[in-house]
């Protein structure tokens, strides 16, 4: 073999300082928009029109901003949960299904309480039911992992489909609203179970998201379980020798992730759709995996990344409104996302040139 230079990704040994990392994300964003502009020019679209629409649809007006912040709530909550489980290197691919189960729990309360139940009782009950249902769904995978060693990536992934079909069954059958003529929707939840608006069109789910981010920071910094999760993740052998109960960590890690995703589903019911329906989530639970990864699991970065991701989604619709073909819009979104993703990856890894032949692993 002739010596073709080879490269290898290897983890950076020194942890980057926050300012350095911010710089990387920023350079990633700049790269993203330059590449996106090149793509638009190649496809014959007007760059200014496209970027103008992206901005208008995401932050350009009170309505757009409200839509973006509301959409960031389910993505952010699911991402916080995924990051929480990943502290112990547990992969939760099941946030989507847990979100649906959370929606099921919240709708169950919101549909069956007496119609005049006060919000003081109904709203906490609905949110709690959503969290419990989401956590219970995640615990199915957690128990299989803890006691039978079943890979949680596969179980959480597969449980998604069951949850989505379960909700589909409910809205087509027992919970179908007779007033919607057999279309797959439940009736609206009682007013008491609806989360109020904060300002303009923004609902109070945003406050919940921020509170949960702060809670995760507190758990990280000053709780025993936060320490144990990270120890089990970063140094599993040390955790083992230290006598940390691995099973408990699996249950808490995945259970907590399910709880947050369930909360996301409950808030969608009580703040966004107000009724259980098929097609409740356009894949928030999967988007959240990406958001958690880009933010490298940091709670505040997750807040920011989920808002930006939501902005990208809403801006995508505005692209179409301004006449950019749907396919071009989708590819542009992907280009932007991949560029940021690549930039953050190079924040944690670096390319090293290795002599040919030494690649054998």
């Amino acid at each position, binding site marked *: 073999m002739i010596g073709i230079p080879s490269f290898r990704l290897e983890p950076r040994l020194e942890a980057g300082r926050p300012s350095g990392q911010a710089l990387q994300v920023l350079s990633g964003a700049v790269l993203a928009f330059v590449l996106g502009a090149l793509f638009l020019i190649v496809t014959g679209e007007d760059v200014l029109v496209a970027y103008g629409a992206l901005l208008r649809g995401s932050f350009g007006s009170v*309505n757009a901003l409200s839509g973006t912040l509301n*959409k960031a709530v389910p993505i952010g909550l699911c991402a916080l949960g995924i990051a929480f489980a990943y502290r112990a290197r547990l992969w939760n691919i099941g946030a989507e299904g847990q979100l649906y189960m959370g929606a099921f729990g919240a709708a169950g309360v919101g549909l069956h309480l007496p119609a005049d139940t006060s919000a003081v009782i109904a709203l906490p009950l609905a949110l709690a039911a959503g969290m419990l249902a989401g956590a219970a769904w995640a615990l199915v995978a957690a128990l299989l992992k803890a006691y039978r060693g079943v890979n949680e990536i596969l179980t959480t992934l597969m449980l998604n489909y069951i949850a989505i079909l379960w909700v589909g069954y409910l809205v087509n059958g027992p919970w179908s609203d007779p007033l919607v003529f057999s279309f797959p929707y439940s009736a609206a939840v009682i007013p008491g179970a609806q989360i109020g608006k904060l300002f303009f069109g923004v609902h109070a789910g945003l406050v919940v998201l921020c509170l949960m981010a702060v809670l995760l920071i507190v758990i990280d910094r000053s709780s025993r379980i936060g320490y144990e999760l990270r120890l089990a993740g970063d140094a599993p052998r040390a955790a083992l020798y230290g006598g940390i109960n691995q099973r408990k960590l699996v249950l808490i890690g995945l259970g907590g992730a399910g709880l947050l995703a369930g909360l996301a589903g409950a808030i969608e019911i009580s703040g966004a759709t107000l009724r259980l329906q098929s*097609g409740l989530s356009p894949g928030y639970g999967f988007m959240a995996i990406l958001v958690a990864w880009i933010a490298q699991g940091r709670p505040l970065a997750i807040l920011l990344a989920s808002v930006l991701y939501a902005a990208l989604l809403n801006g995508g*619709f505005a692209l179409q409104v301004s006449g950019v073909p749907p396919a071009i819009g989708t590819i542009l979104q992907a280009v932007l996302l991949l560029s940021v993703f690549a930039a953050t990856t190079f924040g944690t890894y670096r390319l090293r040139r290795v002599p040919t032949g030494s690649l054998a692993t």
Partner: protein
Amino acid sequence: MKETKHQLLRAVLLAGAAVLAFPLTAAAQDLKAAMIYVGPVGDAGWTYRHDVARQCIEEQGVETAYVETVPETPDVVNVQNDFLSQGYDMIFATAFGYQPFTQQVAQANPDKHFFGITPTIAPADNILNFYGKLWDGRYLTGLVAGAMTESNKIGFVAAQPIPTVIAGLNAFTLGARAVNPDVTVEVVWTLSWYDPAAEKQAATALVEGGADVIAQHQDTPSAVIGASEKGAWAIGSESDMTAFAPERVLTGTVWDWCPFYSKAVEMVRDGSFAPGEFYGGLDDGTVSLAPLNSAVPADVATQVKDAQAAIIAGELDYWAGPIVSNEGNEVVAAGATLGIADINGMNWLVEGVSGSLPN
């Protein structure tokens, strides 16, 4: 040199006059209409038919734009608000599930006009919901199927057990039995709007069970293809499906939203807009039949033509009682008939249908 200057001046003056005159000729073009689709325009079915109608009103001088694959969630609010911010006057929100979100935006923008899909669950003073009396077209295709079957067994591949599908199936059966009382219509529910494999399999199984005509209420031509491959007759739905099996397709129902879209534009232009519900039908071309196969005898063709004229004229009402369900209950009493509201709540299958509603 001077000559050229003159020519230049003249050209400039002419151009100026043209620019001044333009707003006058363009006065009819100032309306902007936006469409929101639940699927991609390439689905060859529901969304595609709406996009054809969009192009139809664009030809009439309306500026249009669309956003496709919008889920039935608060995204609808974002998209509509963005359209309004870009100066759109009319919004066609072409999925039933958009209604609650359209209502929010409509109430906040009382000077704009919104069009959704019936039946109405979220009304507002500036919302007109629309749909078509598809069942009238189904009745006519039933006449053809009833005349063409030799085994007296007809298959029907149905998507979801929602009222519009049920009403279509019942009307089809009433039509078939009007010309051939011995006919039974066997129904298979795929429980999906888009599952080409299941649709085709359902058609094949029905033919193997003895059916020699296969009708359908599905978005794709898969059942038509399955029936024709087995040598049975086929009846299409949604759009003209003749091209998929030219020898075997007898006819089919075809949606055309252009009449309603044009009417909506006209209503907004001349100020005659009124909220509520609008049902197009055979009369305005919203529902029509695909061309009849040349194998259909002339007397059957005449009968279909006459029935169509009679339905349009209000002389033929096939929903008139007595009608008995396939469970033996009298669902329409003698002397009574069904209105749109009854049809929108239909939850029974007419006598002659072999099969039941899935739970």
